Structures are given as C-alpha cells and as structure tokens.
C-alpha cells in the first residue's frame, strides 16, 4: 500500500530524514515511536506530500507521489491525515467539516454528502453534534470529527500524527476507540503515537525512529519486551509509565 525507498528530506542544511525504507501492507497498522525531533511527523507529511521529498521514492497505492503525472490532490485523498492539533475548520459545523471534501473535491451532490457525513459522524459517536461548531466541542470530539473528515474521502490509508497528545488524559480513550475500530475494519494505518497500550493492542508492527532513521522495527510484543538496540532500550525506559 505504501512503499518508501531511500527517502531523504532536508530543511535547508538540516537533514531530517536520512534514508528511510518502509513498506506498509494493505490492512496493516504500523505505529511509529521515537524521540522528539526524530522526524516522525516529517515522514508522515512526506507521505501525503505536505512536504516535498529531497530524494528517494514514495509509492502510495501504486502512484509515485513525486511523479509529475500524479495528481497530488488525488493522492491526498487516498491518504487521509489526522493532525495533533485537529485543524478543524472553525467557521464550519462538524457536518460541514466532514462534507466539504466530498462536495468540493469529489463533486458529490450535497444531499448525498450529508448522508455520508451523518453516517461517519455516527461512526465516531458524534451524530448529535453534527450542527455544532468546533469551538463547542471538546478536544476528543474535535479529533473524532477530524477523523470523520478524513474518512469522508474514503482514503485507502490513514496517517495519524500524535492524534491524542494534545488531549486531556480522560479524552484519549474515546479517540483511541475510534482508531481501534478502524484498524479492526481493515484500514491501513500509520500512526505516530506513544500510546503503548494502543500499539500493543492493534499494531502489527512498531517502528522506532531516531535521528532520521529507522533504528528498529518489530511486532509490538517483541519490540517492547526485547528491544535490541540501545537507543530503543533507553527511549522505552523513558516513555514507559510506571503503571505498565
């Protein structure tokens, strides 16, 4: 579903991604962990071309995203993106947030889009908030609307960039629940998150990134129980909460 080969990305003189190779199979859930500044967000942003690659290749669903012939707006609808800060459109109701893509990108009639929108809001448990503006939603609700907004384009892949790290702890669960449901339905997902419980439960693979490279990858069980690389060991010992 996603094939990344030799991906390099620099901001000016700063090389943030230093040769990433990653294949994600259809239906696979990959969780990326790693210290701040290691390039996790940049990697996700390269996948739907919010950042231009410096070199290397990314294939999403058989489309080379750097190929001039590829319609980049199409790729972006194939790979939905969920942001840490939600980035809902504050001047639109929850429902309008969700239907904007289908209407303006896909050209679906408003009626149909609204039916789809209501269906998706129901799926994320927010049918009753359809006509509410974002400033009246809690963080968890905002993020669930944002997920519905991405799903409205019927993407083949969902990219999550620390979707719960801006949330109050008591609101994290509701967002993770939605993500788990998606995973169980067979959605291909790449998730940057330090929610170890989530990774353990739904991830097929956990990737540890540091300083722009993939240091180690394994099943969550293996990676958490027997990390091999020293950097992984030291990172895990830092993020692990005492409860686990």
């Amino acid at each position, binding site marked *: 579903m996603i094939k990344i080969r030799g991906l390099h990305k620099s901001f000016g003189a700063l090389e943030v991604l230093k040769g990433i190779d990653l294949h994600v199979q259809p239906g696979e859930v990959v969780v990326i962990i790693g210290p701040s500044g290691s390039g996790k967000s940049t990697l996700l942003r390269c996948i739907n071309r*919010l950042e231009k690659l410096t070199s290397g290749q990314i294939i999403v669903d058989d489309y080379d995203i750097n190929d001039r012939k590829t319609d980049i707006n199409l790729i972006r609808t194939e790979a939905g993106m969920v942001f840490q800060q939600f980035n809902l459109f504050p001047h639109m109701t929850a429902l309008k947030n969700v239907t904007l893509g289908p209407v303006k990108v896909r050209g679906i009639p408003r009626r149909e889009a609204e039916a789809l929108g209501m269906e998706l809001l129901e799926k994320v448990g927010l049918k009753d908030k359809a006509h509410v503006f974002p400033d009246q939603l809690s963080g968890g609700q905002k993020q669930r609307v944002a997920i519905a907004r991405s799903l409205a384009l019927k993407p083949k892949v969902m990219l999550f960039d620390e979707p719960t790290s801006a949330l109050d702890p008591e609101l994290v669960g509701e967002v993770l629940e939605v993500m788990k449901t998606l995973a169980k339905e067979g959605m291909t997902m790449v998730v940057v998150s330090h929610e170890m419980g989530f990774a353990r439960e739904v991830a097929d693979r956990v990737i540890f990134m540091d300083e722009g490279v993939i240091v180690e990858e394994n099943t969550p069980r293996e990676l958490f129980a027997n990390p091999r690389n020293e950097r992984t060991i030291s990172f895990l010992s830092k993020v692990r909460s005492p409860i686990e």
Partner: protein
Amino acid sequence: MAGHFNFKASVIWESIPILLVGIKYTIFITIFGLVIGFCLGAVAGLARTSRNPIFYRMAGFYIESIRGTPLMVQVMFLYFGLPLALNARIPPLAAGIGAIAINSGAYIAEIVRGSIQSIDRGQMEAGRSIGLTHVKTMLYIIWPQAFRRMIPPLGNQFIISLKDTSLLVVIGVGELTRTGQEIIAANFRAFEVWLTVAVMYLVLTMTIAKVLRMLERRLEIR
C-alpha cells in the same frame, strides 16, 4: 469691524440642505473608492502572500509607493499630472474615486495580507490533506476566516478614507468640504459653516463606527 463676532444660527439651517448634496458626493466617492480599493487591496494583499516573486515585488512596489507619499500629491498627480502624459482629461469625480481607490487599496492590501497570514498554517494543511487545491483551500477555508479578521481594520479604513475625501477639494469635486468652501465664498460665515461641516463628518464617522461594532458583535456570536 474687527473683534465683532456674532454667531448666526440661521446660517447653519440655511446651509444644511446645500451641504447635504456635498455629503452625497462624499459618501458616493468613499463607497465606490473603497469597493475598488478593496479589489485592488485583495489582489495586492494576496500577491504579498504568494511565493511568486514577480507578484510579490509588484504588489510591494504598489504598496510602498502609495504608503510612502501624501494622498494630496497622489490626487494632484492623478488629476493634473497624468492627463498630460495620457493626453486625455480625467473628470474630477473619476479622478477622486480613483485616488481614494488606489490609496485605500495599498492600506487594504496590508490588512488582507496580515489577516491571511494570521490564519494558522494547519488550516491550509488540513485543506490540502483532504484533497482541496491551493486555490480552493484559499477560497473555502482561509479567506472566510481571514475576512472576519479584516472587518475591524477595514472599518477603520472606511473612516479614514471618508475623511480623506475632503482632500479632493483641491481638484474641485463637489463633496462636503468643497460645498462648505463654496457657501463660505458667498456668505463669509466661516465659523458656522465649518462647524456644521465638522459636525456632519463626525456624524458620518460615528455612524460607521457604530454599525461596525454591531457587525463585529454579530460575527462574534457567529
């Protein structure tokens, strides 16, 4: 007879109907000037947010040259100077509207640029991430939010431009100030007439300010 001032209220009542004709011109010039100025300002402001160096520089040249020169000079250049080069007369009213438009456009450009740049970058990214093009994201997501933020400074510009129209007196457009001047030329009652003119400007600007506050409050509620 120096030092013998007596206030004549009747002058005020007599001049009001004539001044009202001047007010009509003042309002007409302000509104038309600002509508065109807003179009100019929107284009120049957008160009200032663009990555295209040609648009960026051209808009910068326009904004800097207008903001860096007095309106009075712009008006006279437009009305007395430019016709010589073009070999065509510009009617005073058109020159007046044009001057207000070009002048306000430069200030509005800065308002537009500032409002657009004040919108969180995440909004553009979210728009792009659901497959909207850059233009569509601007149109449906950035612009509506930025426009709300433009309203208070645009209102301010409205008031400034309205007062600026009084400078058009130098090219003989029959707006409020010019009308006052003409009345005084006939009756020599400078105190009463300028006082009336001043009060009329004040009523206009205060009305605009009030309408704006109402509009802002309504937008806050949404």
